[in-house]
């Protein structure tokens, strides 16, 4: 236990992933779902950086991938918040179950 190995970090990543998934599945508020997505992305980042530290000597691939993930997550959040505001504008709620106007 005293030595922290790769698996320790990966388990933290797994917990982050599962809680993020749970959040995405149970929340009906669009922004709540977005929060779940952020958790999932963070779990991916933790994994990437842990792999980079333990498995990829001096290659920095994991860190760079994580950097791109952070950039994409920021972009995604900006866009998603814009969509949420638009949703609120059109159907007056951010409850995703009520946004059914495109359903066939």
């Amino acid at each position, binding site marked *: 236990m005293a030595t922290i190995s790769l698996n320790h970090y990966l388990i933290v990543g797994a917990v982050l992933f599962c809680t993020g998934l*749970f959040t995405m599945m*149970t929340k009906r508020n669009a922004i709540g779902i*977005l929060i*779940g997505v952020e958790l999932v992305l963070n779990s991916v*980042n933790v994994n990437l950086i842990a792999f980079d530290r333990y498995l990829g000597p001096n290659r920095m691939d994991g860190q760079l991938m994580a950097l791109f993930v*952070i950039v994409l997550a920021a*972009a995604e959040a900006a866009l998603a918040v814009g969509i949420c*505001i638009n949703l609120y504008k059109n159907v007056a709620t951010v409850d995703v179950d009520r946004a059914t106007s495109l359903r066939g």
Partner: protein
Amino acid sequence: MPYANDVNNDLFLNRMIFNAMANSTHRTRAEGLGLRDAALIRCAQTFDHSRRLKPAAQGRAKIFPALDCLRWLNPVVGLVCLAVLVVWGPGASSVAAADTLASDVAGVTQAVPGGVLEALLFYLVAGTTVISSLGVCIAKNIVRMAVWLFVALGSVALLYLLLAANFLGAIQLLVYSGGTLVLLIFGIMLTSKSPWVRFEPHRLELLGAAVICGALLVGLCAALTGTTWHGMEEVMPGTSVAALGRRLLTVYLVPFEVAGVLLMIVMVGAAHLARQEK
């Protein structure tokens, strides 16, 4: 001279009811309230001068009167805890220097990483991460969720620091906690009708999601522990920002440029989405 501003309260009440009818039909329908109810609620909110104030320390002061004056210690404790985390987090990145020094003096000194301290820090930070991520999925109030997410993001940044990825840790703080999260909170403020808005999921939904996620977690952990990772034993020294940047602009130049273009597109798209309809 028009006595236009001499509006008495009755008129004002009528007016508010009318306003509520005119402006908030969608809201009242969503909340299942009558129009007059909605108007009265709004009036009550408006005229609620007598917001009661309670002393925060009252209940506690009766039990532990001595504790009350220790309030000034709170920031001390908080600051020290966080400082401890941050101080020894980046410290791990200087492993290389410490290692060379240690070898110079015949291995008498002992580097912190790999030691008890690092393990302790890891469990502290990982525990915070896990608790806060659980907080995100348990919290019902959307603002509480955002605050838990904030804690989760901060502790993930500390994990990065423990993993000697200083740059990523700092970027996580800068972009995620400072930018993305504020954006999310902004979205929450713009779209929630009140701070206490809740959308309750069904019990069965909760159960199903819990089962699926629990099974996934167990499966993932089993798979992780069962795997042998190659090169697992060696701990690499922290990478420098210069090396990171050099690699980003040589090997990863194309993705870097593509990310730039993507950000541009997103900026235009977000501006288009959120613009005021004319």
